[in-house]
C-alpha cells in the first residue's frame, strides 16, 4: 500500500536530526475534507493519508510567511522541511528552485505518483451532507466512494478534476523519496483554451467582464498560489496604489490580468487558484492560455527543469518582440 510506504518514509524523515517538520495530508474535520498538516515527530506519521482527496498543493507553504515550524531556526543543522508533493505540485518546486525562491538543499521532497484527484465540488454536489469521515479511492479503474456506510463505484471521468484530464507529469519530476510506482502521463493539446482563442475579441471582453465582475477580492487565488510569493506585493501597496480597493469590474480586471501576466511562464497549472475560488472564476483559462503562448513563442515549458533559466527573466536576440507591453 502506498500509504504504508508513505508512513515508513515519513517516520524515517522525521527521525532525521536536520528536519524541522513534514508538511503532509491528514483526514480533515468532516466528510470528504482533507487537511494539510505539519508534523514534527515520527509518531505523528501515522495520521498521514494519500488519497484522491489530497487536493492541496503543499508547495505553497514553502514560501508562506515564516511561522510555526517553518520559522528558520538558529540551529543551522536543523533547517530542512519535508513535504508531500504530487506530480503537478512538484513542478511548483522545480520552478521555485529555478527562480531561486527556495534552496533545493533546504527541502526533502516526498513524491506521490498521482492517479488523479477528484473535483471536490462535483463530488460534494453528488454526495451532499457527509459529516462522518468519507473516503474516495481508485479501484479497478473506478472511483470508489465510501460515505456513511454505503459504497458507490463511479466512472473516473465523472469526478476527475479538469487539470488531471491532461496531466503530462503525474509522477513528481523532482523528489528525494517516492511513495509508490511511477504513473504514466497523458497528452496535453491545450484543448481547454481553444474556446477562448476562437472567441471574437468583443465577446471575450464581455465574458471576462462578467466573470471577473463576480470576484470579491478575497485574494485566495493569490495566497494559495505557490508561485505568488513576492514579499512586497503590488496589490498591497497604498502609495502608489496600483489597484484600487473598490471592488468593481475595471479594478477586478486589472487585478486578475496583472496576476495572470505575472504568472506567464511561471504558472505550473496545479489549478489551486481555480479550486479555492469561492466565486467560481475560471482562472485557469487565463493561466493556461498564457502557458500555451509561452510554449509556442519561446519553446519553454514551466517546471520541468530546476536548472532552467526562468523564461521571462532571460532573453535571446532571437526573441520575438510581439506583445511587448
Amino acid at each position: 500500500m502506498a500509504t504504508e510506504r508513505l508512513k515508513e518514509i515519513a517516520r524515517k524523515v522525521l527521525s532525521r536530526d536536520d528536519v524541522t517538520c513534514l508538511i503532509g495530508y491528514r483526514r480533515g474535520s468532516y466528510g470528504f475534507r482533507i487537511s494539510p498538516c505539519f508534523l514534527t515527530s515520527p509518531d505523528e506519521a501515522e495520521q498521514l493519508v494519500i488519497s484522491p482527496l489530497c487536493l492541496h498543493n503543499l508547495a505553497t507553504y514553502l514560501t508562506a510567511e515564516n511561522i510555526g515550524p517553518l520559522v528558520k531556526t538558529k540551529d543551522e543543522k536543523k533547517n530542512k522541511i519535508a513535504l508531500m508533493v504530487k506530480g503537478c505540485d512538484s513542478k511548483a518546486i522545480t520552478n521555485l528552485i529555478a527562480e531561486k525562491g527556495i534552496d533545493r538543499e533546504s527541502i526533502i521532497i516526498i513524491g506521490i505518483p498521482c492517479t488523479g484527484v477528484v473535483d471536490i465540488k462535483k463530488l460534494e454536489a453528488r454526495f451532499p451532507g457527509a459529516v462522518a469521515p468519507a473516503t474516495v479511492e481508485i479501484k479497478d479503474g473506478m472511483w470508489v466512494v465510501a460515505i456513511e456506510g454505503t459504497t458507490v463505484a463511479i466512472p473516473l471521468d465523472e469526478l476527475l478534476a479538469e487539470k488531471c484530464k491532461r496531466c503530462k507529469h503525474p509522477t513528481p519530476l523532482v523528489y528525494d523519496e517516492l511513495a509508490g510506482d511511477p504513473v504514466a502521463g497523458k497528452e496535453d493539446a491545450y484543448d481547454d483554451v481553444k474556446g477562448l482563442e476562437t472567441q471574437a475579441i468583443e465577446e471575450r471582453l464581455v465574458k471576462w467582464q462578467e466573470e471577473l465582475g463576480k470576484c470579491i477580492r478575497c485574494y485566495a487565488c493569490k495566497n494559495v498560489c505557490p508561485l505568488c510569493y513576492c514579499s512586497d506585493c503590488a496589490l498591497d501597496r497604498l502609495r502608489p496604489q496600483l489597484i484600487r480597493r473598490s471592488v468593481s469590474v475595471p479594478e477586478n480586471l486589472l487585478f486578475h490580468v496583472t496576476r495572470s501576466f505575472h504568472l506567464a511562464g511561471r504558472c505550473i497549472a496545479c489549478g489551486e487558484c481555480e479550486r479555492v475560488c469561492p466565486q467560481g472564476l475560471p482562472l485557469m483559462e487565463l493561466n493556461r492560455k498564457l502557458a500555451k503562448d509561452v510554449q509556442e513563442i519561446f519553446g519553454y515549458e514551466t517546471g520541468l527543469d530546476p536548472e532552467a533559466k526562468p523564461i521571462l527573466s532571460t532573453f535571446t536576440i532571437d526573441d520575438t518582440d510581439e506583445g511587448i507591453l
Partner: protein
Amino acid sequence: MDTVILKKENLIGFLKSLNAARLIAPAAKKGTTSFEVIDDLSSVTLDLNDYMASPKKAVFPQTETLFAFKKQNGNLTIAPADRAQATVVFGIRPCDARSFQILDSLFRGDFNDPYYTNRREQTLLIGLACKEPTNRCFCPSLGGSPSSAEGLDMLVTDIGDAYCINVLTDRARSALSQSAPLLAEATKEQRAQKEQADKESLAKIRRHVDLQGMHEKLPRIFEHEIWMELANKCLGCGICTYYCPTCHCFDIQDEGDTSEGRRIRVWDACMFEEFTRHASGVNPRPSRAERLRNRVMHKFTYYPLNLGTIACVGCGRCIELCPVNEDIIEILEKVKAVHE
C-alpha cells in the same frame, strides 16, 4: 392575522404585492446561488435553500461611496451618499437574520453609523426557514435554529403544498397591506404542519459545539502555542471574513485625484497582513497566528464582552469555503482541549 398561508403558485404575485423599490432574494447565477437585486421575479429560487454569499451586503455593501467631491473653477462641491431605497430582503436564512442583529449592536450601538442605519431602516427582512440544513450548519450551538424568527419581520416556512408565513412586526403588517387577497388565515392543521417542519429541520443539524466558558478561556490562553499550530495551514485569504455574515471590518479610502473623486468604504479582512500594518511599517499582528487568534477572539471574546453577543451565528460558510479545512468548530474544540 399573524400566521397566514400563501399558495406556492402565488409566490411571484406575493413578491409583487410588497411593492418594494428594491427586492433582494436568492437567484441562480452561473452555477452559484447568491443574493441578488431582482429585476425578473421569475429568477428567484427558493428551492436551493442554500447560498454562499451572505446577504449582509444589503445593509453593508462591499464598496460604498460615503461622498463624492469635485473641484471646478476653484469651487469645491461635495455630493453626499445616495439615500437608501426601500428594500425587501426575501428568503434570508434565520442565521443570517440573526447576523443583522449582531451588526446592529455595533453599527447602531454607541455610535450610530448613518450609512448602515439608513439602509437598515429601509430594509424589511423576510426569512425562509431552512428545510434542509447542510453539513456545515451549527446554528443551535449559537442559540439559533433553522426556524428562528429572531431579527425577522416575517418568517416563511415551506409546509409542502404551501408557505406558512409568520407575520412578526408592525412593519411587516403594513408591508402586507396589498397582499391580503393572496393570503388566508392558517388553519390549526397548517400550524401543526409548520411545527412539524421546524422539528424535522432542527433534527437534521449534525454538527455542534458547546461554547460554555469559551469567552473566558480564550484570553487565558492568549499566549499559548496552539495559535501557531492552528494557523500553520491558514493561507491568510479573506474568504472566511468576506463570507461571514457578521464580519464587518472596513477600510476608508479616497479614490480619484485632487480635482475629482470619492471617499469610499470597502470591506477589509483581519486575515490580511496589511490590515494592521502601521504607517511606520510595524505590524502588531505580524503573523497568521496573531491574525487567526484575533479573528476567533473577536467573535468569541471581545464581541461578547463589549456588545453582549457572540459574533457568530453558526452558518458554517467559513467551514465549507476554507481552502485548507480551517474549521471553526475544530478550532473551538482544540481551544477547549488546551490544558491550562
